[in-house]
């Protein structure tokens, strides 16, 4: 639904629905924190910015660039190859025999998650926070120029 819609605003709205579906999967796995943060960050903040941009640009069919036929064909072939590779890679895995374990384990609860993040995985956690900081600084620098 996200990619088949002609209207970009519909696409964004369907993408939000997709994010909710992903959150639902997280909840089935009892990863409550991940589910909620997914809704807050992606559905609640990032997609709002997407909507801003698209609503303000007011895209419609007339302004949509027409792609030429070769480009379309190349896209179809590339997509087909990706599908082939994925199917080939997943064909022999044994996951299809096992049912997914739902609602088990407490690792997704916030207490355990926090402990893991700040003891076992503290270095990658801090590195990713530095990455965010640099992204923030970069945004400020770009904004200052104008």
């Amino acid at each position, binding site marked *: 639904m996200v990619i088949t819609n002609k209207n970009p605003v519909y696409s964004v709205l369907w993408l939000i629905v997709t994010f909710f579906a992903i959150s639902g999967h997280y909840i089935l796995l009892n990863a409550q924190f991940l589910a909620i943060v997914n809704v*807050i960050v992606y559905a609640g903040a990032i997609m709002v910015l997407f909507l801003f941009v698209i609503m303000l640009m007011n895209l419609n069919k007339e302004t949509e660039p027409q792609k030429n036929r070769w480009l379309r064909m190349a896209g179809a072939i590339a997509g087909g190859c990706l599908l082939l590779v994925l199917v080939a890679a997943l064909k022999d895995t044994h996951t299809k025999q096992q049912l997914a374990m739902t609602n088990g384990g407490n690792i997704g609860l916030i207490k355990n998650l926090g402990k893991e993040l700040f003891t076992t995985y503290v270095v990658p956690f801090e590195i990713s926070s530095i990455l965010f900081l640099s992204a923030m600084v970069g945004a400020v620098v770009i904004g200052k120029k104008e």
Partner: protein
Amino acid sequence: MTLLVIDWWFILEKALLIGGIIGLSFFIAMYTTLAERKVAAWLQDRRGPNRAGPFGIFQPLADGGKLFFKEEIIPLASNKFLFILGPALAMITALLTSTVIPWAAPFVTQGGNVIPMQVADVDMGILLVFSIVSVGVYGIMIGGWASNNKFSLMAAIRGASQMVSYELPMGLCLIAVLFMTGSLKMSEIVANQVQNGWHIIYQPLGFIIFFVCALAECNRTPFDLPEAENELNFGYHQEYSSMKLGFYLFAEYINMFISSAVMVTLFFGGYDIPFVNEASWGLSSFWMTAISFAVIMAKISFMLFVFLWIRWTIPRFRYDQLMNLGWKKLIPLALVNMIISAAVMLLLNK
């Protein structure tokens, strides 16, 4: 007596609770509209609505009836599905936030079963409220865009950016509170306050920031820029008529009610009765639940009154002032508040 793995009684209990809370939200929101006009009249030295019933107490019913029977207009150039989805989303998100709030002390039946007066005591508790609030933006945005009107779109974008930016300091204040409780569960936040005193004593600055942000989140004066009629005609709901308009306005009052409830739970001890140790009274569980419910409702009513009081006292901000206040004053203040509380907690070795 089970459905799948869930006990029927459990489903019945929760269904009753959910129905009760939704009914309560509607009832309170209805009478907040009346209270708003009465408080306005009182502050402006007028009488206010007093024709429908004694002291005008049937006025909300009359208003609702009027909205239901008005002609419903859906603009031709609008996007029909999204046009209807907008107010529906606003209403749903307004009502959803009430799920995690503990409304009264748990009720213990004679058989010893404990029935919590809370729809869901999930591990994420308060974060769930935040996620629902952040989704609440879409009600405004979709409605404003689907109306296919420049002013509606402008107002919707204003409203959405206001809500997104004021969520940040709100979350930062929340972190300071969570330092003290050590849990996101609403029931444990209340239990902590029953034991150690209300959070407003330890976090006065945090409460003030939270309150300002709550005003902005509910689009109330002095932050009611999405409805600034002299700049934007009317706001994001300009093209709406009849009960769809009513839904938007009503959702705002429900939001006020729920955000008051959240603030009471976070900072004013929830259903805790101040200055007394109610456990020593030896009352039956039924009366304890009833009294604690009355107490939380009294606190919420006071918070609602403050909302109304502010609306008729303070003029509206300009848009750039709003953004400056949010990003340049409230966020640094909230950060400082957070760091100080963290340092104090470390010093006290809690």
